[in-house]
């Protein structure tokens, strides 16, 4: 089973667009950097991990690159925006979570 925490610790195949930031700032970074943005309820599971945030939580999709952008919050370090590669079928699953 995919574990986001382990992936971020062990893989180098991801980008951090902003880190140690506030949630609203991270939402703006996602809105400005993703060709497609969907909004999900906080607590929804994406890649097996619950999304932490203030509703509606922006999740970016870049279908051409095959990546998603999402907020990643640590209690003592604030929120970061992480862009990681995902399979096309995962993008389809994420689109179904859209509350717009």
């Amino acid at each position, binding site marked *: 089973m995919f574990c986001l925490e382990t992936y971020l610790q062990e893989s180098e195949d991801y980008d951090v667009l902003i880190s140690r930031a506030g949630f609203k700032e991270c939402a703006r970074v996602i809105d400005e950097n993703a060709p497609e943005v969907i909004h999900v309820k906080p607590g929804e599971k994406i890649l097996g991990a619950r999304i932490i945030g203030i509703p509606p939580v922006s999740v970016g999709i870049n279908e051409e690159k095959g990546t998603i952008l999402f907020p990643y919050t640590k*209690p003592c*370090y604030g929120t970061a925006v992480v862009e990681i590669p995902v399979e096309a079928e995962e993008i389809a699953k994420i689109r179904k979570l859209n509350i717009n």
Partner: protein
Amino acid sequence: MKKALILLGCPESPSQTPLAVYVTYKLKKMGYDVTTASTPSAMKLLEVGDPEGYYIKNKIDIESCIDKLDKGAFDLLIGFIHRDAAVSYFVTFNSILDTTSIAIIFEKDVEKLEEFQNMVSESTDATIVSARAFHNPTPLRVRFDKTIKKLIESGEI
């Protein structure tokens, strides 16, 4: 037995640890089975202050527990908020549990305090207990007691 979950944020504010013990004491007296979710560093402070686990019995990691959490797992959620990340965690736990919630919001900076209050009130139906506080937990303790009394009288808890 009713179940309560206390969320602790980053432990850099001195008010958080004694208040967490106080809130646990208060809830236990009301008959709640209390679980505390926190970072390892916040838990270490509680464990030193309560070495025999008289108050803090059920302990879980705030990051790993959220994946297993489901609606209705707790009857009451109480979150300590003095950082932006703590707002995000509280709102998310509130959204998943969909239960009665109290947000204890404290900050030295008045603008940040108001910002955190607005973020919580715009995203949840939680009862807010807030005060400009850092070292001194007394204003928060007094307001928490008043809030608990009101919630009991109104039958919400």
